[in-house]
């Protein structure tokens, strides 16, 4: 049976997922700044106001705590809100509702309730956003028990994981990579298409080096792996897709095969996603390792404005190639 698909950009795949879920379930609604008539800073929600009306596509004032309060509170009494925080960088003004409320309500209230909220957050570099519009904060939320953390890298996964997020009964923070918004891919049109949390995706097969990458770094890694094929170096590129839950098995199985691990993520290096993955492998897959682990990250620097400076610090295919070779 062949899957019916359509080519679309990442941001359209998210929109499609949201649209389908809103049609399926009346308790799903959207809330955020400029998501209605304007269609959202990245136009992800464009057209949804016309389709679903202003009750279910709720524009708000610039009050991120109130946005998330609406979303988390409504979820506590059975709604399935999808809130948008316009840039990941603005999470700094509204951590409270996510970290101390959504993440903890179920546990600290003794399991009385669940909080089926989805929080959508565009993140990452690539638009000259400078220090306050380019950040990658996903590792902060991995550190907060009670949250699920999703970070797709491509259009197909955007759709499948967004649908799972909306249907999940726990709070999900859904990181949307800005560069991935604009990359096209084949997206299944089946309304029942979902991707379970906790399943990594392997993009290439190989015996030599395991590359674990997230977000925009997945494509860079795939490109690097393709180039390296020509030099007879065969890499497995693995995208965890969800960071909590994290599919450790896929990573460890690959490292068992290759004995070599390179991790690439766009967050600043210290205490990033790559730190956790390196630590897991150093703990649970140490005996597989033939070489040291290498992490490629944005160095510990605020993101600069000038494109040539920004480019100089974000890992790319070339840097990945060079570092894979260091391991072989």
């Amino acid at each position: 049976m062949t899957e019916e698909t359509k080519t679309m950009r990442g941001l359209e795949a998210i929109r499609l997922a949201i649209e389908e879920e809103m049609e399926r379930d009346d308790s799903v609604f959207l809330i955020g700044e400029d998501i209605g008539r304007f269609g959202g800073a990245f136009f992800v929600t464009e057209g949804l106001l016309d389709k679903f009306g202003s009750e279910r596509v709720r524009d708000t004032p610039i009050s991120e705590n109130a946005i998330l309060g609406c979303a988390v509170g409504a979820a506590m009494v059975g709604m399935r809100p999808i809130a948008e925080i316009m840039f990941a960088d603005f999470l700094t003004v509204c951590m409270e509702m996510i970290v101390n409320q959504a993440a903890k309500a179920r546990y600290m209230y003794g399991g009385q309730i669940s909080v089926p909220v989805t929080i959508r957050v565009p993140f990452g570099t690539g638009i000259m956003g400078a220090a306050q519009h380019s950040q990658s904060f996903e590792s902060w939320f991995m550190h907060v028990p009670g949250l699920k953390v999703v970070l797709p890298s491509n259009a197909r996964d955007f759709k499948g994981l967004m649908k799972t997020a909306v249907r999940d009964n726990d709070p999900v923070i859904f990181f949307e990579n800005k560069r991935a918004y604009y990359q096209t891919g084949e997206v299944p049109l089946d309304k029942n298409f979902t991707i379970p949390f906790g399943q990594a995706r392997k993009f290439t097969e190989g015996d030599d080096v395991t590359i674990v990458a997230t977000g925009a770094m997945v494509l860079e890694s795939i490109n690097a792996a393709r180039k390296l094929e020509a030099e007879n170096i065969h890499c497995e590129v693995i995208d965890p897709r969800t960071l909590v839950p994290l599919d450790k098995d896929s990573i460890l199985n690959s490292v068992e095969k290759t004995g070599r691990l390179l991790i690439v993520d766009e967050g600043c290096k210290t205490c990033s996603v790559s730190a956790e993955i390196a630590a897991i492998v150093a703990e649970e897959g140490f005996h597989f390792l033939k070489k040291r682990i290498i992490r490629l990250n944005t160095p510990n620097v605020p993101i600069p404005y000038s494109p040539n400076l920004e480019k100089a610090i974000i890992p790319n295919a070339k840097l990945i190639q060079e570092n894979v070779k260091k391991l072989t």
Partner: protein
Amino acid sequence: MKKDELPKDLSSDELINLYKKMLLIREFEQRITKDTGKIKSPLVHAYTGEEAIAVGACAAINEDDYITSTHRGHGHFIAKGGDINSLMAEIYGKEGGICKGRGGSMHVADFSKNMLGANGIVGAGPPLALGVALASKMRNEGKVVLTFFGDGAANQGMLHESMNLAAIWKLPIIFVLENNKYGWSTPVDYATVIKDLSLRAQGYGMKGFTIDGNDVIEVYKTIKEAVDIARKGGGPTLIECKTYRWQGQTTMDADKYRLTEEKEEWKRKCPIEKFKIRLIKNEVFDRAIIQKIGEDTLEQIDQSVKITKKSPKPDINTVLDDIYKNPMNLGGN
């Protein structure tokens, strides 16, 4: 003695119930305070002195209406109809607690009563209340939300965002500001310039009232009015209830920052005593009934302590339960 005006929509039984609830809260907190040494937590906040607010407010709403609470939540819990046995057990950190010993005093919640939780973060209740009110509105439930918060919380940024949002969407929510004159050790007249915090409502195009928070009937009436408006789609109201906490900030607080005279003055304005006299004056009850209520109340509390003592400590093998509702899929691909 002369009769005064009591609300006509309340029967004698209902009036007596207000008294009973206030007394139950009072005696509950007294017991908790006495048991501080056994409970051990330094973060238990007693509601003593403020009983008229929770009781008057919760009497003005239906059982299926919602409330959100604060770090000082025992009173709200009891007023909303929560079970004191599971409340007591929770504060003691026992398995039989309403949150299975995971939450403690600052997180008591009874979702079966739509008591949506005490909260350890000052100011975090109102944003959550927005969402609850929004859900009620979107589902046409006709339910309202009371969101309790303190004079200290009033200066949190989240409050401002919440009041504005509630106002623009005309959400069915009542902001119940418990002004007990202090945010921890900080006097409200240091923390803000204005005398009546209800003035802030104007900045959001919302109605605001300042009332005597020690008068359970005034609280009841004012909240009731606001609730009626909210239920009809008229939007939110801010109601500042002036009151005073009799005890320190926590049951372990030495409370050196407040003058004895001030405390004594406010004790003379005891909401329970005041209401008792009023009910007697109006011949709603008499000394004999009062005596009986007093005994029953203490009995209830003794009972809850007994039950609590029998309740085991939470099983440490369950410590990782209830973090997530949907189990985590960790399969390979």
